[in-house]
């Protein structure tokens, strides 16, 4: 029992130590999942904000991967001690939106701080993704990216392909990929990260195709999946055929395929625009192109949808804290901050002004390709098919899709079977998650 007393004593001492420090300034905790260079950006931004004024102090806390951060936030909410701000990844958006009593809409907070909140300053494609059906912005977009095409110029040259002219449509990609393989320029023609995000979710929005009913889940949670229509089936059958010939190489469910591309094994690669950093640092002679589209689709190319994460604000905090959060979000929206974030991190700017500013500075002339993901996102006003996909259990549905894709790529089933199974199992999972 002595041991217990000791532990309790130690605990009490630590509690005393930790609570006695904060008085005049309101501390605002920000739980995030940023690693590597992006983590340094988080620390730097917090420091600058804290130095810019004396009333509030942002305390950034790394809480692990995106799922780990979300779980930590949920555990803390249930223990009634949530942080003020939490970073949630794109696929967690549905979960957060369903928890209406737990979160406070960002639109509300931004107008609370005394200022006005003008949604039109923000990039429409991004804002639409993080808003309620009625247009209320729920979370603050922090890091957004979009899938683009990368290609290895050395391999292109060896295969006799036009180094300055990357393929624009999927049939062109397949043709170039086959040529890379047959010419022996590389052992594989094409690979891709995130098949679910790039070849289903963005394939749908970029080609203006329906992924699911109710505007892909943005208008209502009770959705039915629709991604087994003929055009999807055709696309995936083409990938399966390429895989059989060894022209397409599967790298894994998330970003693993980046390593294959970096190793110079594949000539063409689709991946998030945020993945640029590693490719630049590897010293590869690379080029960038728009995400390919499907020429048979009527509206293509339409617009791509963002991936990444946004900042959510928990409910039940004091007005003082919300004012601090509002100040911080306004700080983050500043043109120079956004422009810098965009140029340093490879993520998309959240405000139009930051985009204009970056353009004016000549950044895109020096870094061609960095504008590509923005142009993809802004080209056209989003249709009901292209605002993104939102499901209450998107992570689970993606798991199901990945499982079916893997069976298809292993030659155990056709694309038709894979997509039919994924739709059927996905629908069942959605119904279960909704409690029906």
């Amino acid at each position, binding site marked *: 029992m002595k041991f217990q007393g000791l532990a309790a004593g130690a605990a009490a001492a630590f509690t005393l130590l930790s609570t006695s420090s904060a008085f005049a300034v309101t501390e605002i905790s920000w739980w995030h999942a940023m690693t590597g260079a992006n983590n340094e950006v988080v620390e730097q931004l917090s420091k600058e904000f804290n130095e810019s004024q004396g009333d509030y102090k942002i305390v950034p806390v790394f809480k692990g991967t995106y799922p780990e951060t979300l779980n930590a936030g949920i555990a803390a909410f249930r223990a009634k001690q949530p942080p003020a701000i939490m970073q949630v990844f794109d696929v967690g958006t549905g979960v957060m939106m369903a928890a209406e009593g737990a979160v406070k809409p960002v639109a509300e907070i931004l107008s609370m701080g005394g200022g006005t909140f003008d949604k039109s300053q923000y990039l429409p494609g991004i804002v639409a993704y993080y808003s309620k059906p009625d247009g209320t912005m729920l979370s603050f977009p922090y890091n957004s990216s979009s899938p683009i095409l990368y290609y290895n110029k050395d391999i292109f040259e060896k295969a006799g392909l036009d180094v300055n002219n990357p393929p624009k449509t999927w049939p062109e990609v397949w043709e170039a990929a086959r040529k890379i393989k047959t010419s022996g320029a590389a052992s594989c023609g094409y690979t891709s990260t995130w098949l679910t995000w790039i070849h289903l979710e963005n394939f749908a929005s970029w080609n203006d195709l329906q992924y699911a009913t109710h505007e892909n889940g943005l208008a209502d949670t009770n959705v039915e999946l629709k991604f087994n229509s003929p055009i999807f089936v055709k696309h995936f059958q083409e990938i399966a055929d390429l895989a059989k010939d060894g022209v397409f190489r599967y790298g894994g469910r998330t970003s693993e395929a980046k390593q294959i591309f970096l190793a110079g094994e594949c000539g063409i690669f689709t991946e998030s625009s945020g993945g640029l950093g590693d490719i630049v640092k590897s*010293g590869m002679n690379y080029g960038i192109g728009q995400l390919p589209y499907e020429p048979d689709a009527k509206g293509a190319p339409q617009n791509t949808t963002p991936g990444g994460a946004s900042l959510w604000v928990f409910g039940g905090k004091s007005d003082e804290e919300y004012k601090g959060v509002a100040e911080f979000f306004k700080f983050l929206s500043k043109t120079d901050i956004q422009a810098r974030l965009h140029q340093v*991190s490879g993520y998309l700017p959240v405000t139009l002004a930051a985009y204009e500013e970056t353009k004016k500075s000549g950044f895109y002339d020096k870094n061609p390709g960095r504008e590509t993901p923005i142009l993809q996102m802004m080209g056209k006003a989003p249709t009901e098919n292209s605002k993104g996909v939102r499901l209450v259990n998107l992570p689970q549905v993606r798991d199901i899709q990945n499982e079916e894709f893997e069976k298809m790529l292993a030659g155990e089933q056709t694309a038709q079977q894979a997509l039919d199974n994924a739709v059927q199992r996905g629908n069942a999972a959605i119904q279960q998650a909704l409690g029906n």
Partner: protein
Amino acid sequence: MIGQSPIRIGIAHIVLILGIVVVAFPIYYTFVASTHSLQTILRPPLPLVPGDRFFENYWTALFGGVGRIGGVSVGTLLLNTTVMALGIAVGKIVISILSAYAIVFFRFPLRMMFFWLIFITLMLPVEVRILPTYKVMVDFGLIDTYAGLTLPLMASATATLLFRQFFLTIPGELVEAARVDGAGPWRFFKDILLPLSKTNIAALFVILFIYGWTQYLWPLLVTNRNDMGTIVIALKKMISFADADTEWHLVMVTSILAIVPPILVVLFMQRWFVKGLVETEK
């Protein structure tokens, strides 16, 4: 010692070397990676021999890299991790050896129920009961404390089970003799049981220290302040597989730094093993 033929000894050496190649290769490979430039690491496959960036990489990591990303100095991170690992190892050994002692050498009502109550804790990892355990932490005010970092991880049965298994092998005559000599339970424990358990305690200490040292999910949850973080959390903070460039060469250096203290513990504990061996040579 039984005479061994040189051939058999030779075979033993070969098997051991093969075993070590398999078991230790990943560490060697981490070390290799820590001596190459970022560019080399980013363009796989990685060479099998060390590169020429040893001093450069280690210098950068020690005097900037880790601290910059971890938010606090390497020293603080290592201190927190050491406190956590030591706390778990010592705490768990103490409570386990006591309870195993009671269960093996005493007969009392509810004895086996207690054993099973403790034993079942083998069966449910922290991840599964994370929400409720976290709530207990908050209710007790243990967030951001060393107690919060260590106590919940002591609630496990491995050590108790090991001591029970070991105590059962102690001949009854030994206990008998102690009692004839007039030794009470405490003297028996102190003069006979503890010295006999030396090798096992050393083995357990190594295992538990490393267990505590490598914890990730739990310290991540119960600390909200950077200066309470551990080296593994800082390391994880440096690694990004998606969407950001990672300074892999510095990550590799930090990985090596993070495994040096446990290696020192192993080396130190070796002496206990050897001592136990010499003293019990029968």
